[in-house]
């Protein structure tokens, strides 16, 4: 006898448990985009590289503080992935985030001013290098704790699906790209996020920027199945693929197919994106854990050089045009450094703003509270120091 209650006619929940239907095999469309598109990609990659070179200089000059992780070598990843996304698709990443911010459309000025800790930075100088946020461009941050962004990426995708399907009663239209380093493969947060994504049909793409190292730990010393990362996702019922990350055309084609599929089926994907970081982990890493030979081998397949040669060969750009392009990029980056340098430091009172949307009661402003006794403009969330203020 069947004691289970009869299911109602509509058994399908929107965030239903994945039923394990086979993924259609994705077949990337490899047609070459028009020259104008490739020019934009080339310029974006040049911009990121030049930006990072100047960041390293500014760090030496002590204009930039804290930790600074540059993206040199990985430019094709951000540019190729962003090209495969729609503007309304959310993007979230880790702390090596300047490239994603620029590819997403943040102005070099706002990005550099943030690095300098100035008011014109994308976060008014409060976030710094590891925390690039840009709401108009759907850039939901760089995040400093390894793996922290992976459940957040899941949540962004949950929300876009919820908006589309529950609030608008339509079909899922957006996909979230959640970038992570190969080191983050070893954080529990990612595994919980992958299980949830697989379980609930969440359209999030976990893009592992597999540059082979987390700090001084090669991926083979840090994680199991390093030769086949896809296997990590398969157990969660998530479709997985390897995508080339040193050739922006390949990155674009692969990611386009993946993102289109995630969008159409509202399903997660896991991508092992092969790339290499040319520089050290941060500004103070002598890179003793790898050989110069290895570095040179990767540098020989440089993403900027690869695209440039391809375009020259196909007659999509001339050598002169490319030179002009680089000149323009250099000027833009020089300008952003000068802009950042001229931008004022945040007023001391900024320390106390943006803590709450609405502190206890109406927000009283942002002037610097005096040390011991408060003061007229003391924001109300500050501990009350004067007993009279309690009466």
């Amino acid at each position, binding site marked *: 006898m069947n004691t289970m209650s009869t299911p109602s006619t509509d058994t399908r929940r929107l965030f239903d448990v994945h039923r394990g239907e086979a993924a259609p095999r994705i077949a990337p469309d490899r047609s070459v985009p028009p020259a104008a598109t490739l020019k934009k990609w080339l310029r974006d990659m040049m911009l990121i590289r030049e930006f990072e070179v100047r960041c390293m200089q500014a760090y030496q000059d002590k204009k930039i503080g804290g930790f600074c992780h540059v993206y040199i070598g990985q430019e094709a990843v951000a540019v190729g992935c962003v090209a495969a996304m729609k503007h309304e698709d959310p993007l979230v990443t880790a702390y090596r985030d300047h490239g994603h911010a620029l590819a997403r459309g943040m102005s070099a000025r706002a990005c550099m001013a943030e690095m300098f800790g100035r008011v014109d930075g994308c976060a008014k100088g409060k976030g710094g290098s590891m925390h690039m946020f840009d709401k108009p461009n759907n850039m939901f941050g760089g995040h400093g704790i390894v793996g922290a962004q992976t459940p957040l990426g899941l949540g962004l995708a949950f929300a876009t699906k919820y908006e589309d399907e529950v609030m608008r009663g339509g079909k899922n239209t957006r996909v979230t790209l959640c970038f992570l380093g190969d080191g983050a493969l070893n*954080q529990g947060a990612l595994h919980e996020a992958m299980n949830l994504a697989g379980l609930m049909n969440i359209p999030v793409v976990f893009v592992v920027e597999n540059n082979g190292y987390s700090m001084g730990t090669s991926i083979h010393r840090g994680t199991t199945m390093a030769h086949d990362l896809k296997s990590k996702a398969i157990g969660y019922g998530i479709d997985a693929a390897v995508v080339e990350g040193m050739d922006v055309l390949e990155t674009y084609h692969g990611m386009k197919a993946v993102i289109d599929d995630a969008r159409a089926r509202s399903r997660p994907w896991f991508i092992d994106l092969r790339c290499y970081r040319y520089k050290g982990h941060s500004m103070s890493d002598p890179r003793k854990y790898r050989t110069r030979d290895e570095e040179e081998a990767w540098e020989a397949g440089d993403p900027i050089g690869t695209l440039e040669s391809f375009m020259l060969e196909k007659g999509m750009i001339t050598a002169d045009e490319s030179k002009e392009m680089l000149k323009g990029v250099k000027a833009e980056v020089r300008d952003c450094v000068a802009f950042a340098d001229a931008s004022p430091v945040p007023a001391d009172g900024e320390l106390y703003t943006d803590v709450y949307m609405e502190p206890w009661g109406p927000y009283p402003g942002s002037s610097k509270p005096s040390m011991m006794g408060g003061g007229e403009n003391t924001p109300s969330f500050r501990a009350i120091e004067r007993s009279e203020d309690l009466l």
Partner: protein
Amino acid sequence: MSALREIEYRDALREAMAEEMRRDKRVFLLGEEVAEYNGAYKVSKGMLEEFGASRIIDTPISESGFAGMAIGAAMQGLRPIVEFMSWSFSLVAADPILNNAPKMLYMSGGQFGCPIVFRGNDGAGGQLGSTHSWCVEGMYSNVPGLKMAIPSTPDDAKGLLKTAIRDDDPVFFLESERMLGMKGHVPEGDEILVPFGKARTRREGTDCTIATWGRPVHFALEAAEALAKDGISCEVIDMRTIRPLDVGSVVRSVKKTSTCVVVDQSWSFGSPGSELASQVHRHCFDDLDNYVHRVHTADVPAPYAFNLEQEYLPNARKICEAVRAATYNA
């Protein structure tokens, strides 16, 4: 007699670990980049060579996993030292380190102890921003069952760490990236074993007691020096451990000075600073000429911008202001 040997704070930490590992095979070190990279901050430099990969263990970025693993190993009788590259990263291991280690003895009715040391950099490191600048003493010292040491000088770094490793309870050992390069005289071998729960008077004075620990000890000494020029004599007490907390040393001092400033680099709300101030109020109720003044990190997330971070942290200027206010010299 040879001249007093001076070494860096980071070397003192290494000496403590190496000496304890030589005398006790149950002791081992694990954490990110501790072995082949010689430690992200070179604290464990050379230890892989001496002790081998079975006792100096590189881990992936899996704090929850390896901290929990070490706690299990401690329950079985080993004595792990867990290095967090920064205490900020221990937050992803909050359940094992707060919910397991300090409670194991109690919830097993005394059957299973947890002789383990968690150590790493604590406090703002210099523009590291909101997620990387934690002063975990504020939050973690709330938990019974754990001990907490915060050394402010190389000799204490060694002496307290050796004690921590020999201790049978979980010890949270809070170092500071900003002090790793600080030099000082450090005795060799077992000459130095600093007991927990004994504060150290860093400077004697008669007008105001400044009680603090960790890096702010140096700000307090700087403030005391400046105030002495204006005829205000401060006694600076370095608490050294937060659990146990040597309230007695502060009370004895306050009975002499009648005023007290507590300096704590964690947030003020529910902090070791608020605990100490409350105890001083209770035990020195009739001796105090003023309420206990406190200097803390501002009650906001850590900012990145240099000037905002300066404004955010305790410093000598803020301590001077607090002492002047407490002693009616404002």
